[in-house]
């Protein structure tokens, strides 16, 4: 189910002019503070009436200012997690969670996932910031929406909690086929979840496309942040080794990564940060890095700093590596040059591995 959004709206000081398509899976809206992310979410949910626009979820037209269609908020069946939790203060956590009445049966399961079991009879006024945000997530999940709109849902949560919730969202998206439109500043979350990324800046779409392409686009390194630039590779589980590592097949060879709970044959998406890749002119030895893949330099892009981003071909995948200019010169890296990409196994954390959605198998 594809969400297609096209809207124009004038605020007193700024203007939105946004158009994008969000195919099934997770689409991340990414952009700096004030870019217009929340406004887009609100318009899709029906809480902001844009000056002009058309919004459709699959065959359902939710808004068409030309055709004077505007489905009321409560009929849109979109689960919205607000940037602020917006819990109902007079209802207990339990009552907040089952407010939508549809997902009652899954209350216990959802509460457990979000660590809310002990809080069910509390009132929102007594919750901590993160607790409130988790209730808000649960409330939206239990409304069994046709699509989830999540506005920085995990910003108030600690890493451990995030690591529990993210895979659930992923499964929901993959198994229940609920597409998610997700706002985040956190590129690790973005890379993990996003099948599709929409980069917004100053009320306009800067770039939109599959996450693999955007995250490994050296032109976007400055937008995404140097430290978070990276690429996404397709991989297939080959075997589980005894010592806690999983053997994966990528187009350019074999990767050993910390154990991934997936059966042999399963397809995965693996995000590799540019800065986690070392380059070597000959195959290194006696090094703690297990993964060494032969590569060819496609392009070298200089930024303003001392680093260069090397775009490499590894098998049929693209890999980014960030090295200093000094090293690049010392190693003689230039387009067409052969080299070896060195990748530490532990540099790929579970947060960087996502299931490839069924559609992409």
């Amino acid at each position, binding site marked *: 189910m594809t969400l297609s959004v096209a809207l124009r709206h004038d605020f007193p000081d700024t203007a939105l002019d946004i158009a994008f398509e969000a195919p099934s899976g997770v689409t991340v809206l990414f952009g700096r503070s004030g870019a217009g992310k929340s406004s887009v979410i609100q318009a899709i*949910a*029906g*809480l902001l009436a844009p000056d002009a626009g058309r919004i459709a979820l699959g065959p359902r037209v939710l808004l068409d200012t030309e055709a004077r269609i505007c489905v*009321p*908020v*409560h*009929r*849109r*069946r*979109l*689960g*919205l997690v*607000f940037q*602020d939790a*917006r*819990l*109902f*203060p*007079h209802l207990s956590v339990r009552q907040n969670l089952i*407010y*939508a*009445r*549809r997902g009652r049966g899954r209350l216990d399961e959802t509460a457990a996932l979000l660590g809310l079991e002990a809080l069910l009879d509390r*009132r*929102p*006024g*007594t919750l901590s910031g993160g607790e409130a945000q988790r209730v808000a997530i649960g*409330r*939206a999940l239990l*409304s069994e929406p046709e699509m989830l709109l999540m506005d920085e849902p995990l910003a108030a949560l600690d890493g451990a909690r995030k690591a529990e919730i993210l895979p659930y969202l992923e499964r929901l998206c993959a198994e229940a086929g609920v597409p998610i439109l997700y706002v985040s500043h956190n590129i690790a979350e973005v890379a993990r979840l996003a099948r599709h990324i929409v980069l917004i800046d100053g009320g306009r779409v800067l770039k939109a496309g599959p996450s693999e392409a955007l995250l490994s686009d050296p032109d976007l390194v400055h937008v995404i942040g140097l430290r978070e630039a990276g690429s996404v590779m397709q991989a297939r589980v080959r075997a589980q080794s005894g010592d806690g590592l999983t053997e994966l097949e990528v187009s350019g060879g074999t990767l050993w990564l910390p154990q991934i709970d997936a059966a042999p044959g399963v397809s995965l998406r693996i995000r590799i940060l540019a800065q986690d890749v070392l380059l070597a002119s000959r195959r290194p030895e006696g090094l703690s890095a297990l993964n060494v893949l032969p590569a060819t330099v496609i392009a070298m892009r200089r930024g303003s700093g001392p680093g260069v981003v090397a775009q490499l071909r590894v098998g049929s995948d693209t890999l980014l590596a960030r090295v200093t200019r000094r090293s690049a010169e010392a190693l003689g890296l230039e387009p067409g040059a052969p080299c070896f990409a060195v990748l530490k196994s532990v540099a790929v954390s579970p947060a960087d591995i996502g299931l490839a959605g069924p559609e992409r198998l």
Partner: protein
Amino acid sequence: METLGPEAWQAVALSLRVALVATLASVPPGLAVAYLLARRRFPGHALLNGLVHLPLILPPVVTGYLLLLSFGRQGPLGALLWDWFGVTLAFRWTGAALAAAIMAFPLLVRAIRLALEAVDPKLEEAAATLGASRARVFLTITLPLILPGLLAGALLGFAKAMGEFGATITFVSNIPGETRTIASAIYAFLQIPGGERAALALVGVSVALSMGALLVSEWLARRVARRVAGQ
């Protein structure tokens, strides 16, 4: 209260009934009108608002007179009520309740309206995104959140209904057991030399009853407010 004869107690009972019925019966229309005034912009907004305030602005006798003109047996509305429902208000305790309700209406509406305007529309939006229809949003979010204001308004209405005299006696006169409320009885006592004592005794009862209502409403409001604050 030895000074109070059975007639006085009858007035007390009647006052209670009138005030209670007036208060309870005016809550639903009060809610509706407050909602319209707080949340909707429509052509007759100012007119409706003015109409609601009228009983406050007019001397009570005038309100009573206007009620008599409209709801008396000869009045257009009174005739209608009689023809359609066989209901008559003139000289009935129901008429006294109507007078009390109308006098209390501006107070009730204003309290509810203030409460409505204090409700964060973002919460109602959140409920709508969870699939709640307008009616459900109102019943499950708005109404509970305005409950303290509603209670305050109902209390004001009740107190006013207990004290109302001018409009009531003008509209439904003073018939023992039917329309002779505490306030009418007090007035009657005050008209004769030396009647102050008996009036005072009735004032005491009236004050006691209303203070009771006040205490109960404060207690309820505090409970409700704690809930609404999410604690």
